[in-house]
């Protein structure tokens, strides 16, 4: 009986494990952007360098993860590009006088810190990484 109970317990934990790992990329923004209209079209425009200033007058600044599943997932959803295509898009802009490239970071913790400390900054991290130092934007808000 005890063995059966333990076995069920283990199976339940295994079943729950993917739920715990199934975190999603989320858009995080500097707290000064709370209340700004950040619909999908606006975010896409900002990420592609077309919108350079928010309605509150702060400059759009992007904190980007260099690579990885969070970067791929977020960019696919937001601008329908792979991380490589997004990098090339910004290389074209930055090296031809068309914009100032996003700041690139190796880790989500660095993106989180950058967005928290930089007025006008946005970025993507895993939902499990986001904390109260930034505002998490829900899709469609």
């Amino acid at each position, binding site marked *: 009986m005890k063995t059966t109970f333990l076995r069920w317990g283990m199976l339940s934990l295994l079943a729950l494990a993917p739920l715990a790992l199934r975190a999603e990329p989320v858009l995080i923004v500097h707290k000064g952007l709370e209340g700004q209209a950040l619909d999908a079209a606006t975010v896409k425009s900002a990420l592609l360098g077309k919108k350079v200033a928010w309605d509150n007058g702060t400059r759009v600044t992007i904190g980007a993860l260099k690579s990885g599943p969070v970067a791929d997932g977020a960019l696919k959803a937001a601008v329908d590009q792979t991380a490589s295509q997004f990098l090339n898009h910004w290389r074209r802009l930055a090296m031809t*006088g068309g914009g100032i490239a996003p700041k690139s970071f190796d880790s989500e913790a660095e993106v989180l810190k950058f967005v928290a400390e930089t007025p006008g900054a946005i970025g993507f991290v895993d939902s499990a990484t986001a904390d109260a130092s930034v505002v998490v934007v829900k899709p469609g808000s």
Partner: protein
Amino acid sequence: MNTRSHTQGGRRAARLALVSIAAALAGAPVFAAVSVGDVQIGGFFSQGYLTTSNDVNYPAETADGTWDFREAAINASMPIGSKLRIGAQVFEYRLGDYGDDRIVLDWASIDYNVAPEFGLRAGRVKKPRGLHNEALDLDLVRPFIFLPMGMYDPRLRDFNASFDGGMVYGSLEAGKAGSFDYKAFYGTADISTKEGSGVADYLRNAGIFEPTDADLEATYGAWGFWNTPVAGLRVGLSYSVLDSVVSSGPFMPMPVLEGSIELPEYKNMIFSVEYLKDDWTFAAEYGRDWGDARIQAPGIGLDNLGETESVTWYISAARRLNERFEVGAYYSQFSAETASAGEPDSQGDIALSVRFDVNEHVLVKLEGHYIDGQAHVFDTPSAPNPNRAADESFTLLAAKMTLSF
């Protein structure tokens, strides 16, 4: 032309490049990303090798192989307030004799982005033309070493790279129809006839006069792309004019006399399609250059008014296989519809490329071309091809390593 000094210079540069590359591969990048306060600094340096078969020299003096193939640029940009930005880039290149490692101001502009729908850029501005002209020197963004040269000829960057003037640009949302990006510009550009000028060689290749001066009154045009509702698909049209190109110099058959050419309006139009799907990039473009050409040599009463026209199209596909490798291929066709009788009037080019990203700062490319026809091959001292034949095919092999930051 001092070929020996060029070759020795090329070897020195190649050695320097190899030392730089070795340092980068050892984990100590020559260039490190630099951001000083709000100033963002970027750049690249590349060194390559070119060789062609069948004694054909294309796009430069390549038949015996050459290391005279490199580019370098450094740029800086900074925001001022939320909507204003300034920046500049210096650039130098050598492609055989072309470029001559001369440092030029590639772009230097002030940009005021009023809103996504409307912005202004003024100064020396990169010229929008087709999918690739603004980023022609940027091989960081593609697997190819050479883009289809009938449309994006690296020898003619003096004509096409940038202009001094102003540009308006913006992006208009169209709801379910997608969005439209546009640019419209007006300006002028200095056309150099100094040693290493590709434009001078283009004029010299006509065999009429030795260009000692060239002038362009104005260049203007528009560029528009529709980002369709199909994710990753965009369609565009660009149109540009070189207004009053005039060049003159000693008439080749009788150098004591002067010869000249005038192109009152030399027009270019490119229709473009690009489709990004997952790791694939597909593209196709159709371009046409045309205009009247007036050739004069007053000393012998020569005054010919004719037309010049050429057409280039290509299809390409590229796929990023993983973080390290990207492969690409294209087929392009160039036709010069008004070539003189007996002159080559077409050139097909099959290109295969492999790109290997060593790390985020270093990449290596290998590229092979099978080229059928020689309509785009010059016969000049910088690219001697005295036996240029209309139907002769040849191969071009290119290798290139680029450091970027």
